[in-house]
């Protein structure tokens, strides 16, 4: 099983994400934002955290127009898997692969700390290693993580069981305490918290490792 991790100018969690995929058994390649294609046979694309293009205009807005994002959209249309973390989540909303947008944190401060997340669904390759209702500890590190979507979209996300994670204590003003959401086909996950930063005992917590193990397990069977 193959993972590709995208590198934009300003990405800074790309190597962490690659390590987490590799530890779970993935063959990982890094792809540059100017690449027109993903490597052949890629099962899952990781869109990492960081400050792509300096967060100019809006977080993720310029990255969403990059050459590689064309290939990522095509991968999604083929039913491929995508994990977007932090800035990667912002990129996925800007590309419209996921609904909503990420606004400036309600308290205006950049927040870097470990938070509690409630797993809301185990029905995805990303979350099937947990039970719905589990509370896990995962770090956040963002200035613009305040999830916004209109009432209709929030109702649809809840009704279709597409909220993957909610904060147990809302740190940033996100509507409906949303920390991560799934696409309609449940194969694209965007989340502000960083599971790759809680994937090794050296990180001080390993609650995120189950996500990478679950993805590896599901994609091996496929």
């Amino acid at each position, binding site marked *: 099983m193959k993972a590709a991790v995208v590198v934009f100018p300003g990405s800074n969690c790309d190597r962490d994400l690659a390590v987490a995929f590799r530890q779970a058994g993935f063959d990982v390649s890094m792809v540059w934002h100017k690449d027109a294609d993903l490597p052949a046979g890629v099962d899952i694309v990781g869109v990492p955290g960081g400050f792509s293009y300096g967060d100019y205009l809006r977080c993720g807005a310029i990255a969403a127009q990059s050459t590689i994002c064309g290939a990522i959209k095509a991968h999604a249309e083929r039913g491929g898997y995508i994990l977007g973390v932090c800035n990667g989540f912002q990129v996925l909303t800007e590309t419209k692969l996921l609904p909503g947008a990420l606004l400036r944190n*309600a308290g205006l401060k950049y927040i870097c700390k470990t938070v509690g997340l409630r797993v809301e669904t185990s029905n995805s390759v990303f979350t099937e290693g947990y039970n719905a209702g589990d509370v896990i500890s995962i770090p956040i590190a963002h200035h613009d993580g305040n999830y916004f979507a209109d009432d209709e979209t929030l109702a649809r996300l809840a009704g279709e069981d597409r909220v993957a994670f909610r904060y147990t204590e809302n740190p940033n003003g996100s509507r409906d305490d949303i920390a991560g959401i799934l696409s309609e086909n449940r194969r694209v996950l965007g989340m502000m918290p960083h599971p790759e930063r809680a994937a090794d005992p050296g990180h001080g917590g390993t609650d995120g490792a189950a996500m990478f193990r679950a993805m590896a397990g599901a994609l091996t069977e496929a």
Partner: protein
Amino acid sequence: MKARVHVMLKAGVLDPQGEVVRHALGAMGFDGVEGVRQGKVIDLELADGTTEDQVREMCEKLLANTVIESYSIEMG
């Protein structure tokens, strides 16, 4: 030719930065500031003949995120 694009958060979308500015103005003694909304102004220098429709397409595709933002265009 030039165009000026104003991008604002939509009504109903909380603007935390505007709220902080409002509080700061109150703390400075400017009474009666009941609301502050902060936005962006983007000035475009354009080849002659560029149409407002083309600028609108730029807004829809890049300059504004219409999930959270509204925009207006001044040509001239």
